[in-house]
């Protein structure tokens, strides 16, 4: 019996040793689709988007074979910790709460929060007196939610939504005066419709978006940071960014 335990623990130790010494020739990266324009599928079924192309560039830089995995958002961090994949590149904002569970790379982009309203909305959103009593819609748990909750909860009424679509419907139906939402999401869902406009300057919030990895994979984080740094400086990053965005999200 004792021998068996010793043998078993040796086997486990060897397996663990193998993991430690991984060369990272193969990296599995998870995305939650669709989240245009960051990651989505073309009508032909091909995975593409800003983060997907950036991931491909990182893999080319590392000379690694990358496998892209589709994973729904609520199972992202559990899936990473359960070793279903090695990294998340799916617009995951760096927060202290998440950093307790995962290891983040340096941020690789940061989208501002944008203010959007109906055509007839003519109030300066930074003027707290003018905003008195207005109803503001945010997506629950976003950095925009945190910002409005901390800065404006005495001034405005805050309504929290799970999806951006529900929020836009209430903006259209005049239950909301203005929404404060991740800029690309607002561009997609609000500005694409008739009768809406941007009503204030975009606000840069939070620490940006990083690649999330398991805390033990420090070697992988080091490689990805180096690759991202190179891409940001040699123009590859800018080329990909300009393909998808009309404004600057580089960080």
């Amino acid at each position, binding site marked *: 019996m004792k021998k068996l335990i010793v043998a078993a623990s040796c086997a486990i130790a060897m397996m663990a040793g193998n993991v430690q010494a991984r060369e990272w020739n193969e990296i599995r990266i998870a995305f939650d689709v669709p989240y245009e324009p960051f990651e989505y599928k073309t009508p032909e079924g091909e995975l593409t988007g800003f983060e997907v192309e950036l991931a491909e560039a990182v893999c080319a830089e590392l000379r690694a074979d990358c496998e892209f995995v589709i994973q729904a958002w609520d199972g992202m961090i559990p899936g990473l910790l359960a070793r279903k994949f090695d990294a998340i590149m799916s617009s995951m904002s760096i*927060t202290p*709460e*998440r950093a307790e569970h995962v290891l983040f790379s340096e941020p690789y982009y940061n989208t501002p929060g944008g203010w959007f309203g109906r055509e007839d909305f003519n109030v300066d959103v930074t003027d707290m007196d003018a905003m008195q009593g207005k109803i503001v819609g945010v997506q*629950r*748990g976003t950095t925009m*939610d*945190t910002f409005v909750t901390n800065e404006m909860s005495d001034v405005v009424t805050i*309504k*929290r*939504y*799970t999806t951006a679509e*529900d929020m836009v*419907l*209430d903006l*259209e*139906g*005049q*239950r909301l005066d203005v929404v404060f939402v991740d800029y690309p999401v607002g561009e997609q869902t609000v500005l694409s419709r008739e009768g809406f406009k941007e009503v204030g300057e975009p606000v840069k919030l939070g620490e940006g978006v990083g690649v999330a990895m398991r805390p033990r994979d420090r070697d992988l984080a080091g490689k990805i940071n180096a690759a991202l740094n190179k891409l940001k400086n040699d123009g590859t990053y800018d080329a990909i960014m300009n393909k998808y965005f009309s404004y600057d999200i580089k960080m």
Partner: protein
Amino acid sequence: MPDFLADWLNQNDIFTAATMLHYWDGLVTTVQLVFLSLLLGMAIAIPLAIMRTAKSWFISGPVWLYTYLFRGTPLLIQLYIIYYGIAQIEGIQDTFWWTIFREPFYPALLAFTLNTAAYTTEIIRGAIVATPNGEIEAAKAYGMSWALRMRRIVLPSAARRAVQAYSNEVIFMLHASAIASVVTIVDLTGAARNIYSRFYAPFDAFIGVAVLYMILTFILVYVFRRLERHLLRHQRPLSH
């Protein structure tokens, strides 16, 4: 909230005084929403149940259609249709109705009331249909009119048979009210979702709210047990 209690709570990471107040606001909203919809639902259900037992199809047919529609579709869908549907009606924003339906509370109250009224109608109808013939014949022999018979014999007798099934409906309604949070109402579940997204602590936030729902359920169960004992006291043995 007294200061000593707030100080004591603020030592916690998640269940701070602010969190507890948020839960409390949610609790008040949930209780208001459920209580009002049950009360209004009952007021609608009694006349509808009587109509549903009428012999004429012109009276019972529309009620049948109504209960069929509202029991045949999920409450969530009904809430979405009422909440978002009303806002899509052309020009509603300029009428006085909008002052009511602008707030999420009233569309939710309307959806919950119509839903629970449909179920309660069927519960009461079943109880009315099951009235023993002898009771009705005896009432007729006394020369009671239809209205007096309904008030003194049929409805009280039906209430005794309906109370157990209705207590289930009340508890279902309490739990179904959790979906009010999808239309931005900060009820108990809405409060828990806000706290969860603030602290990324699903276990604490949702177990906290589950305990509150359970306490409410136990109170309801206790009230209905008392009510049952009161209504069915004639069936108890005289001694003990």
